[in-house]
């Protein structure tokens, strides 16, 4: 009889404990072990860290892209600037500015028409102008560069391969100090030579002198085009 009561009591206890376990929420955090909770917390932390790392990664990537873009733009701008400077120095661009106009007119001579200036005189004139620090020079419509050739064909002067018209002829000179250049050129030897050769030389400082660009192809004997990718 006692055994029955005891078994009944144990059975009731077993049922109570089983009932407790039955009603515990399944799948809730309260029912999960500490390890799972810790793992979940760790996962959350790592996900947050991954998110932060991704954000910083995209930030740095955009920064890098900006830097590359800026660098390219900067390089391109510098190259364009250099190219412009080189073209300007080579005489490949039109130029305007203050300067000196040198007009070479023929002396009045009843029996001679189509008087041309001699090439040697022009060469001397250009030498004198360069010596007195003229920036750029154009004789008639021909821009003088380092590659300009002075030749005489059938007693007609040619510059850059083009014949110069008969006198009167105007020489355009760009300079920062037109008045000083004028005073220096008035006593220059080349002007004396021109005047000895029956020409009148008249010099006028001008505020706006425009020079045409060098129209010929530049000869580059020792240069070749750089292929893309070569260094």
């Amino acid at each position, binding site marked *: 009889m006692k*055994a*029955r009561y005891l078994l009944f009591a144990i*059975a*009731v206890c077993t049922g109570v*404990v089983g*009932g407790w376990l*039955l009603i515990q929420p399944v799948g809730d955090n309260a029912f999960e072990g500490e390890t799972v909770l810790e793992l979940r917390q760790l996962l959350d932390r790592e996900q947050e860290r991954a998110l932060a790392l991704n954000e910083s990664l995209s930030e740095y990537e955009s920064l890098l892209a900006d830097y590359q873009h800026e660098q390219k733009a900067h390089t391109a701008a510098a190259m364009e600037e250099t190219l412009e400077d080189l073209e300007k120095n080579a005489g490949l661009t039109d130029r305007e500015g203050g300067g000196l106009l040198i007009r070479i007119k023929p002396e009045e001579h009843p029996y001679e028409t189509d008087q041309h200036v001699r090439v040697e005189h022009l060469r001397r004139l250009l030498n004198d102008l360069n010596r007195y620090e003229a920036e750029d020079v154009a004789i008639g419509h021909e821009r003088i560069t380092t590659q300009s050739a002075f030749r005489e064909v059938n007693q007609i002067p040619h510059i850059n391969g083009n014949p110069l018209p008969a006198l009167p002829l105007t020489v355009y000179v760009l300079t920062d100090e037109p008045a000083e250049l004028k005073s220096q050129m008035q006593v220059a030897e080349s002007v004396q030579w021109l005047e000895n050769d029956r020409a009148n030389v008249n010099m006028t400082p001008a505020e706006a002198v425009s020079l045409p660009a060098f129209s010929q192809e530049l000869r580059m004997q020792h240069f070749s085009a750089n292929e893309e990718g070569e260094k």
Partner: protein
Amino acid sequence: MIWIPVVGTFLGLMIGILINVPFPARFDMYVALLLLSLLATLFGGIRASLENTFHTGICLSGFGSNLILALTLAFLGQQIGVDLYLAAVFALGLGLFKNLSQIVRLCMPQKQA
């Protein structure tokens, strides 16, 4: 005879569900071991009563010693990070099935020789 623990278990289940006492999540392993010890004692008690060898002292002391050893193993295992409670689960579970098979055998009608 067999209906007493069945009725008791059913009654206990009703009480447990109706009382609805929540316990902290970290104790669920200990509660499970308590349930296993109770089941082992219940099955052992049923078997002993069927064999007419039931002894109250042995039943209660067996339950107490089983429970204490199982909880100690679980606690120690949790402290050192090794799942020692599995040893208790294995041992109690094995006893449970052995007792059940014995109960089933005792409940079967005896063959006439």
